[in-house]
């Protein structure tokens, strides 16, 4: 299994290089650079040229990319052009914020959604199923930032239950931290419940069609027992794969949610970096996000046999 994991990681290297090269090129194609923003409306051409030279932006794109790649291989992702911070620790600290919210939201959503989806599948085409699916569909139809704004307006401003902006890390003050992330987590949870319920239902329907379920029923097992013993465990594994995909997507940054709730997360860092033409930050964030994507997918694949009785049996 270790060999498999290593193999997968090595195979992902070309993908990562491709992504970073594309990002590098695309960022250079976008008009404007850090110098333009730094000098604003008084950019004397000579001064701008001097600054570009000092930042190494006057060299050819290929040389710049080569140098960046060389440093990246050695674990040095450069420094932000906006505030001169090293990119890797910056991305890591922002990632903590994103990860906290995403893990909390997906965990809660999964706990709610998997039983809901299973029940819906089990009672397929009844009123209960219809209600669950419609509810889930409605939830995933709501634009996340709109939901977030409405929540902010209602719970933050009208009722004043939670602070409306800012972020406190859990290591500083766990209670306060929880207060600050409750709304973003709630927003994300609601939407993910919509997505995961439908996924869990589909997975459970597949399982219910399998022969051993029919077999178990034929043996005269009570329906609730069939559900608990056979359907739920077997529907869990495919749902896990889907949760993996969801996590991979979300961990890359939930820029919109982070913007609404002013959280210093990874997605916000990337978006701000793009607007500020902060090449090293965009470059570094993208590599980081792509790596997360690869690693999460790998972990899900590796975890699969542990949860799927069918795979272990064979």
């Amino acid at each position, binding site marked *: 299994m270790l060999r498999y994991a290593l193999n997968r990681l090595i195979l992902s290297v070309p993908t990562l290089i491709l992504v970073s090269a594309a990002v590098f090129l695309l960022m250079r194609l976008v008009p404007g650079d850090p110098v333009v923003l730094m000098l604003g409306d008084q950019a004397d051409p000579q001064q701008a040229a001097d600054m570009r030279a000092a930042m190494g932006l006057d060299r050819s794109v290929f040389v710049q990319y080569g140098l960046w790649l060389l440093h990246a291989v050695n674990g040095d992702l450069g420094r932000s052009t906006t505030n001169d911070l090293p990119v890797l620790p910056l991305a890591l600290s922002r990632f903590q914020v994103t990860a906290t919210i995403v893990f909390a939201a997906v965990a809660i959503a999964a706990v709610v959604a998997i039983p809901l989806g299973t029940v819906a599948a089990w009672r397929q085409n009844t009123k209960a199923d219809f209600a669950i699916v419609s509810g889930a*569909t409605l939830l995933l139809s709501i634009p996340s930032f709109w939901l977030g704004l409405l929540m902010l307006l209602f719970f933050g401003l009208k009722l004043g239950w939670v602070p409306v902006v800012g972020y406190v890390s859990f290591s500083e003050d766990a209670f306060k931290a929880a207060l600050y992330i409750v709304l973003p987590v709630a927003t994300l949870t609601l939407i993910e419940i919509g997505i995961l319920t439908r996924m869990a239902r589909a997975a459970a329907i597949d399982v219910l069609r399998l022969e051993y379920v029919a077999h178990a029923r034929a043996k005269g097992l009570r329906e609730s027992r069939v559900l608990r013993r056979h359907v739920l465990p077997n529907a869990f594994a495919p749902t896990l794969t889907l949760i993996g995909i969801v996590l991979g997507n979300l961990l*890359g940054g939930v820029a919109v949610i982070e913007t609404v709730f002013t959280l210093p997360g990874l997605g916000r860092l990337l978006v701000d970096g793009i607007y500020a033409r902060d090449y090293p930050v965009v470059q570094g964030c993208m590599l980081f996000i792509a790596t997360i994507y690869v690693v999460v997918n790998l972990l899900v694949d590796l975890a699969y046999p542990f949860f799927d009785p069918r795979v272990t049996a064979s």
Partner: protein
Amino acid sequence: MPRIRLRANALIGSILVGATLLLAAASIVWTPRNPLAVALRQRLKPPSAEFWLGTDEVGRDVFSRIMTGAGTSVMVAGLAVLAAVLLGSLLGLVAGFLRGWVDRVLMGINDALLAFPGILLALGLMAVIGASQWGIILALGLAYAPTVARVVRGAVLSIREREFVEASRSIGNSEGYTMWRHVMPNTASPLIVLATSMFGWAILAESALSFLGLGVPPPAPTWGNMLAAARPYMESAIWLSLAPGLCIALTLLGVNLLGDALRDRLDPRSAER
């Protein structure tokens, strides 16, 4: 019994999507007022008999903009899906049919595209194409193409070994002809189902991009950029964000319900995604 949900889904979905399409179509011939006409003395008026859904921050009629916005949103989402389907199908067909190193290279590119953030793509394309809705369409199309490619490739891989494909080859038809005549039509069902979902994603994505300032450039209204522009007035002029927000949510609900119905109809064995 099984038909009940299906029919209810199909019915509600059709009504909601139909209403959107109707609004979009009607906006071409008629809107209550000019959706672009600025009236600075009529800013932020609440809904009334004169302005059914109120006016926005520069005094434009919100209802007229919702109508025109339906058209723009539908067009942007529709064309984006079309682009994704064309590009993705091509990639998926080629990869699935030729297999070998071509498959590996194409799927490598595919994975790279999947890991790419839509926002950077949108910004980059906006720079290349210029700020217009075409940039968004292309960006969304490119962003969704990999998913299409995966589905089509999967379908092709499973279909190409089936008897009728073998039969076509054995009677001497060329690979290209076989692909065109026998493989492609059989990828249609999963594609239609996926395209329906993607249409919903595209409407949602356009609104999110607008929110981050990268959507369809104003003043042309889309629901997304109306919602984004309404942001500062959430408290003082709630109608500004309620109207487009509800429109997006209801249309998406319709698209998803319709998608479910279609899936049950066309592709009963496929897992819901």
